[in-house]
């Protein structure tokens, strides 16, 4: 089961990197979403994948046995999901505003802050 997930996470990462290498902001954003979900799956797999084992500590033990899944990575994922969702919402609005203001979604043409023909500083006075 874990091996299957490892392959899936690899696919997520590969697709995310491919999309993020694009010049267009929307594709980069989709890449970031995929990357975020890939990371969530990675954390999920790190906490063991089990089926139908209730996390109940037996009467004669003081810790949870290793048959049940570790609950901590799942708490980490919850945090990561909330954060990556809010970031995605912000970035989506930012990309839209950038498209409205700059009239392009190609990062090559976004040269307002770093103009191509900026003069060199004076060499004397």
């Amino acid at each position, binding site marked *: 089961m874990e091996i299957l997930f490892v392959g899936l996470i690899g696919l997520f990462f590969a697709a995310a990197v491919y999309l*993020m290498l694009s010049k267009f*902001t929307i594709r*980069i*954003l989709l890449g*970031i979403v995929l*990357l*975020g979900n890939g*990371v969530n799956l*990675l*954390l999920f797999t*790190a906490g063991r994948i089990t089926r139908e084992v209730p996390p109940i500590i037996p009467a004669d033990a*003081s810790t949870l046995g290793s048959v049940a899944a570790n609950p*901590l*990575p799942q708490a*980490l994922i919850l*945090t*990561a999901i909330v*954060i*990556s969702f*809010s*970031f995605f919402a*912000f*970035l989506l609005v*930012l*990309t839209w*505003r*950038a498209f409205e*203001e*700059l009239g392009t979604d190609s*990062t090559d043409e*976004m040269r*307002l*802050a*770093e103009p191509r023909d*900026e*003069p*060199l*500083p*004076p060499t004397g*006075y």
Partner: protein
Amino acid sequence: MASPSTPVDLAAAMVTTAPALADWLVILPTALMILSGAALMMIRKSVRLHAVIAIAALALLVLIDALLLWQVSSNGPVTMTMGGWLPPFGISFAADMFGAVMALVSALAALSAAVYSLRDIDTSGLRHGFFAFLLLLMAGVSGAFLTGDIFNLYVWFEVLLISSFGLLILGSEPKQIEGALKYAILNLIGTTLFLITVGYLYAIFGTLNMADIARKAGALRVVTENAPPLMTLTALFVLAFCMKAAAFPVNFWLPASYHTPRITVSALFGGLLTKVGIYALIRVTIMLLPVEREAISLVIAASAVLTMILGALGALAQNDLRRMVGYVVIVGIGNMLAGVAIGSSTSVSGAILYALHSIVTMTALYLVIGEAGRLAGTFELSRLGGLWRRAPWFSAASLALMLAAAGLPPLSGLWPKVMLLKASLDIGAWWLAAAILVSAFLVTLTLARTFLLAYWRPAPGGESEAVAATDWHSTLPIGLLAALTVFFGIYPEPLLAISQAAADGLADPSAYTRSVFPEGAAP
């Protein structure tokens, strides 16, 4: 629910005694910033109250951080664990010398920037929550410096990142939106890399508490069969933190964005944000994974050399003052990385001292060029001029700060450079020492040229129309920060002692570990 017949021993998993009053100091900075930031959000419409509340809160933050530093230097590291759970189950906040002194200096820089912002930020900026974002940014910065838990560090990184987005787009000019887009995407990828690494770290160590990791790393290194991939972990950490700290080749987001926002915001970013990345890099590679850092030290050193030299060349080629200072920030990052790459006691304390110096000077340098640009009405070097005649005292403070940033005596930039040079010559890395000297020379050229053109020469187009003269909004913060660099340039002993103690605490974290896990606590 435990039935009365089977009593549960709470002391096995919970803190049963109330924490000492001094322990509260470690959580107060973050709590104060979050609470006052939230209060400002609630009174968004009453903009006149914002500045008063924010500056009072930041002054209180400086006071608390000073008390915390005093407590740490007299009684050793301070720890508090959330929710009453014993570490490593609860999230610990732990302040040692390194974290406490970084928190104090960054609070000072933030307070200065807040005073400067009184004129720089207009009512619309205040309505959009400038001070609320500033306080939440400081919550993230203080939290990152004081937390003892690596996942919590990730959370504080995100807190300061989202606040920095808010600050960056204040004003909504097309230029700012473009800068913010590049900044946001690259920084988000950086923190996602950090999160991936945290996932691996938990899979290897089974704990997220930094003191616990420091204890367990030694035992994991001697495992030969199925050896845990500590090298992979270290390489990923270095990449993620270098991205946050703006080290070459993952630093192109900094010159693309730092010159676009309001000058106060640039000052905050240039002073604080990259230093949080350096802090995390030093904390993880020097304290937690020193052996693995040694193995890739050559890679870090190469990145340091390229960061320094290319940063200095970039600064030399800029006509816009704000972009020039962005590159000077990058040169400083290269110097600190050199200290991390060498990893000896002298070099780490040199890097820490450099970080403290850089927080103060970079904040001040941005404020200085902001004021110069306001007086002359332009940020372009080709059109600036005549500032010396118009504002001699301001020009003198600017000169002091520029010399400090270049690392010339008798100002605070000299000492960390001397320590880094000595450390690199001690291990025979002459090329690293040469890079530090060459980059310092190029920065000196850049800043001396700036002074010559913008201040010394007569204004190219004759005297421009009268702008309001410098008043206390700018002289107070710039004067305070310039006085700090002059004072610690002439009398560096206290700072040298503090950074040496911080470096020693990282090289041998037993005091830190003992503070988080007092004797008799469960392992």
